[in-house]
């Protein structure tokens, strides 16, 4: 019987083919737009977060107690080697790096500016957060004698620095004296982490220790995990074991990025709700007319023994076929669009100045999450089912049996 009802439902949709196609196209277009928008916006947000994690915070960072409020050489982590051993033993930890940092001044023969000295091990940084992938000019190298420096691209732009230019870094050392170091720019980094691009000067860790007179001790230990879901568990464990240090997850260090992610989720949800409500209204109109114009047909069916439940099933089936067809076409188009932008990215180089101001990459790669398609299927199903409730109620009240006698 259900096969017969399904065939009748299909025949009804075919009879009003243009109308049915319009509804399918409407659902497909809305889904296509929503999926593309969601994947691209999420991709944009996650890229910004990923840049911050890779270039600075890691999934978790450890600081000396009080360092974040008062960054200086008197709030260092003294037992870096011990913590390294501890982290090596934890299978959840993918990598970690040790950094020494101090605020100071960068100067050329003509100009000077405030800067943040980042004394690092370049090879370890590359293994950790792929720092070398952020290089836009020059070499990812401090040179044989460690006299090179990598400079953030915004700082380089403001100082009009080029690869090979001589710079002088000055900063307070651990004896509270002002120490200076002459270096040459060996490369320029664009991490799209605004704070780093604006002020970071990466120098060799050993040379930084000499300059700042810090033979041991580090300012920050940045940790990356194999699975980001483990952040809270690892953070709690580390905090318990290193009670005198400040252990922070990336979202505590970059609350604005977390808020940005939450805002984007709310924005996507509101847009999706709005679109599916309106699409539901479109399906409702078609189903209402479809039911009303077939009152006599339904009356005859009831007269020959079809139950109202079977008619209800038929109307639901019509609505569901429309919704499912639209969903399949929309998902296919949306999926293909997302795959294209996942693979090749959306190139917004023409707006690079604006994207740089927001710390965003000029090429945005879309995300493809199975959840997009699952949520869309639930939303389309919900919209198609809800949109036939009122037409069915009207159908029941209209007494189709009596409609047989109407002209």
């Amino acid at each position: 019987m259900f096969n017969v009802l399904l065939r009748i439902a299909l025949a009804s949709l075919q009879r009003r083919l243009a109308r049915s196609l319009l509804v399918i196209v409407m659902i497909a277009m809305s889904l296509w737009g929503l999926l593309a928008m969601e994947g691209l916006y999420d991709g944009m947000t996650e890229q910004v977060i990923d840049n911050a994690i890779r270039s600075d915070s890691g999934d978790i960072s450890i600081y000396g107690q009080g360092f974040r409020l008062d960054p200086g050489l008197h709030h260092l982590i003294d037992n870096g080697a011990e913590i390294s051993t501890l982290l090596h033993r934890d299978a959840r930890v993918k990598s970690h790096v040790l950094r020494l940092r101090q605020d100071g001044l960068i100067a050329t023969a003509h100009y000077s500016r405030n800067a943040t000295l980042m004394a690092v091990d370049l090879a370890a940084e590359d293994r950790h957060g792929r720092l070398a992938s952020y290089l836009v000019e020059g070499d990812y190298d401090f040179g044989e004698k460690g006299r090179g420096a990598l400079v953030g691209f915004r700082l380089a732009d403001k100082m009009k620095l080029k690869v090979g230019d001589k710079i002088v870094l000055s900063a307070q050392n651990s004896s509270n004296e002002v120490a200076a170091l002459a270096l040459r720019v060996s490369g320029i980094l664009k991490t799209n982490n605004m704070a780093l691009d604006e002020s970071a000067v990466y120098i060799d860790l050993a040379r930084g220790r000499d300059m700042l007179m810090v033979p041991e001790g580090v300012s920050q230990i940045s940790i990356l995990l194999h699975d980001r879901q483990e952040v809270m568990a690892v953070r709690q464990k580390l905090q318990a074991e290193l009670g005198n240090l400040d252990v922070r997850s990336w979202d505590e260090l970059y609350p604005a990025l977390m808020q940005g992610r939450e805002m984007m989720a709310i924005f996507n949800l509101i847009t999706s709700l709005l679109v599916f409500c309106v699409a539901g209204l479109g399906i409702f109109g078609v189903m209402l007319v479809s039911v009303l114009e077939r009152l006599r047909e339904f009356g005859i069916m009831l007269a020959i023994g079809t139950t109202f439940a079977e008619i209800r099933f038929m109307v639901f089936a019509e609505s569901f076929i429309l919704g499912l067809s639209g969903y399949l076409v929309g998902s296919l188009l949306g999926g293909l669009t997302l795959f294209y932008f996942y693979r090749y990215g959306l190139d917004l180089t023409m707006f690079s100045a604006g994207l740089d101001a927001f710390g965003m990459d000029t090429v945005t790669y879309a995300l493809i999450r199975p959840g997009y398609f699952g949520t869309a299927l639930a939303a389309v199903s919900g919209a198609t089912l809800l949109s036939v409730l009122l037409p069915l109620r009207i159908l029941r009240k209209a007494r189709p049996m009596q409609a047989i006698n109407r002209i």
Partner: protein
Amino acid sequence: MIFIHFALRNIRAYAVRSLVTILLLSLTTAMLVFATAFMDGSHDKMLSNAVEIYPGYIQITHPDFRAKPSLDNLIFDVEAVARAVAATPGIAAAAPRFETFVLFAADEKAVGGMLSGIDFAAERRLSRLASSRTTGRYPEDGDGNQLYLGYELARRLQVEVGDELAFVGTGADYSFAADNLEVVGIFRTGLFDFDATAAFVGKDYFDGVMAATNYATHFIVQPEDPHAADQVTAALNERLGRHYVAESWRTTMEGLVQAMLVDSIFGYLTLAVIFVVIFFVVLIYTWLTVFARMREIGVLRAVGTRPGQILQMLVAESALLALAGVVLGGMIGAGLAWYFHLHPITLAMSEEVFKQYGLAASSMPTTFAPLIILRDMAMMFVLAVLSTLYPIIKANRVKPIEAIHHV
């Protein structure tokens, strides 16, 4: 006139369809009007905040200063520039500034920052420095080594009002410059980076200690009407000749201007997805009502009504519905724009996000621009009528005999 009469009758006869169409168009128009007002308003607020806090609407520099901001490319005749500015109409205030980066040292802390020599009296009209004071007092010209310090910089240096600190830097003649300063006031603009690096002394004192008499890195100009900044810039360039160049905020803050443009583009793309669905629904509803009246159309054709006349009747009907929806939606959108223009929207959740991007704004007023609202309404009206044309034209092409027998 008769077509309007018929159209009105049909609108009443298909009340549900008419109501849904009007409501959908109202919603769409209200959304567009409000979204435009919100985007324009929030962007204006962010830009005006960013411009007015310190950078100013127009800057005059040596032609090579932007490309190479060295001490060789200063304004070496401040008085000549001041005379050119004074002779240019449309200018409310102007003053020279000299910005340089130095190392500040206080007790056990040393931090790099920007030390600027400014005209404190003139800055009251050029920037928001005076109104951003949190503690102490706003200095006056002739105060000597009295320092007006950014809140975050004061925190990093661990100094308060009344404390002394020293600076080390390079004078305008490349000489070594150093002196002791006394903190008399602390300001907080809300722009984290600015508050973390900026400090100000009187230009008269600065000129003496930095050997910068009659020199400036740039001149800041406040036009009487900020919207006329580009015209005033052009007039200034005519007077300044080739020795100096005036640039409006659109050039000096190109990144931020472009960032707002990118934000608008993504905003309109999202609206476009919603609008596509809404116009599909309008199209579907028009389709349903036009084809429901196919027999009526056939009879009208059979009694001699020309296709053009039927087209006029149906288009008049769509236009009236579109007009009603657009006017209602425009009024709702305009009402919201007006209300939130007077009572700005507070985005407490976004405060951290804005701070991260250097945008000191947590409350966003919408703009209320009647001409823009009318433009949006006209656009929605045209789109709404266009979206109904396909079913109208298609129905009008059916032969009278087929139309009469249409089921």
